[in-house]
């Protein structure tokens, strides 16, 4: 049997395999603790980036790590463990965060449209057809706007994190880019609907 001391040299993938092979075995607990301990920092940092506050990040990180622990048996070893952990962490954050609107600015009051007839933009968003939205974005936005809007709406990344990630030097940061992108999309939809006779 390996001691917990000896796990420090064992690659992630081998530790995961050790747990997956015999989850109730004598080594599983120590191997899992070592493995998930290695990912505590990166998981916490990612969650902090996504939610912005330390307590929220801590809760979310523990949720992600616990999810990983529960499902170590489903790690197939076909890819690097770090990529598997990333997917779990990312998914955990996506679950916890509200998805921003594709077309309404982040500052807009989400209830401001209440009582309106659902417009074509709302109908489009409610359909939640990622392929259609992707086609729309590609047609009407330049690459930089595409990235900012996709990061905001589908990766659910906070605006300041997008500013950093895309290295936007502009004073308004990603906010300005997102506003411009959403304006373009709204106009494109209006034009399309006018062309369809309002249908």
């Amino acid at each position: 049997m390996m001691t917990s001391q000896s796990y420090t040299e064992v690659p992630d993938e081998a530790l995961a395999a050790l747990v997956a092979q015999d989850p109730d075995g004598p080594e599983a607990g120590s191997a899992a603790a070592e493995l998930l301990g290695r990912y505590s920092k990166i998981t916490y940092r990612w969650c902090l980036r996504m939610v912005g506050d330390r307590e929220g990040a801590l809760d979310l990180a523990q949720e992600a790590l616990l999810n990983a622990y529960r499902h170590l048996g489903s790690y197939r070893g076909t890819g690097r463990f770090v990529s598997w952990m990333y997917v779990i962490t990312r998914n955990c954050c996506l679950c916890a965060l509200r998805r921003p609107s594709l077309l309404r600015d982040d500052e807009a009051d989400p209830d401001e449209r209440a009582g309106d007839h659902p417009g074509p933009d709302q109908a489009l968003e409610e359909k939640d057809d990622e392929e259609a939205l992707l086609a729309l974005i590609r047609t009407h936005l330049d690459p930089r706007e595409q990235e900012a809007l996709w990061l905001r709406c589908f990766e659910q990344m906070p605006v300041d994190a997008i500013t950093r990630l895309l290295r936007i030097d502009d004073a308004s940061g990603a906010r300005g880019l997102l506003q411009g992108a959403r304006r373009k999309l709204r106009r494109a939809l209006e034009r399309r609907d006018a062309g369809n006779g309002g249908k």
Partner: protein
Amino acid sequence: MSETCLDMGGLDRVAISGPTPQDQAHLDVCPRCRTRLLTYREYLALPEESEPEGESVAMDRLRERLKAEIHGTPSSAAGPGAKWRGVSPEDRGAAARSARESWRDGLRRLRGLRGLRPAVGLAAIALAGILLIRERPAPVEDHGVLRDRPAGRPTAEVVIARTQSTPDGAVALTWRRFPGAEMYRVVVFSADLAEISRSPAGTDTTFVLDSSAVAALAQGPVGMFVEVQALAQGDRIAASRTMALPRR
């Protein structure tokens, strides 16, 4: 475009070795893959970044809680205010059993459960031939992935699905893509939660149950229930709430 979207293994390969000309051609036109690559690279670079304020305290608490979860020991460093939302496998099992039993008890209060059995057999035969999944190009998905139901949240939030009857008596099921899922299947249960039939796994997010299947399933006095299951590498990673099949 989605046919050539990079899966998680592809993203990892590009992150390590850089894109091939073919990858690059796709990245140039696909904001989804570009942003996923950007965010994944950002994630990989996190350990190199300077330590955020308060991280060491957070790490102590996190590791303590993790250790407590794995080894089943009380966590002192987690502190009285700590919210370790996980539960032990035993507790999880008990909770699941309790939920299942209360659901069954509720159903048993509906009369005539025994009379369902013949309909179940008939329905299974009818369904086996009728379930249809329309194939579309697979969306970008991740490998070996899960987004499990976070503790304390209802399954309903995991895969959001709804059923709708059509005028011709068919029932259409639609659901949202679930991050990490490679395929979906629809499973039909009898009122006592016995699985009757399941559709072949497919990538589409809609499913049409033909009117004759619906008619066969609806013969029982209690009705049938359907659930959409999200799959990764053949394993169920999430599911919708179990919904009653609309009866005519």
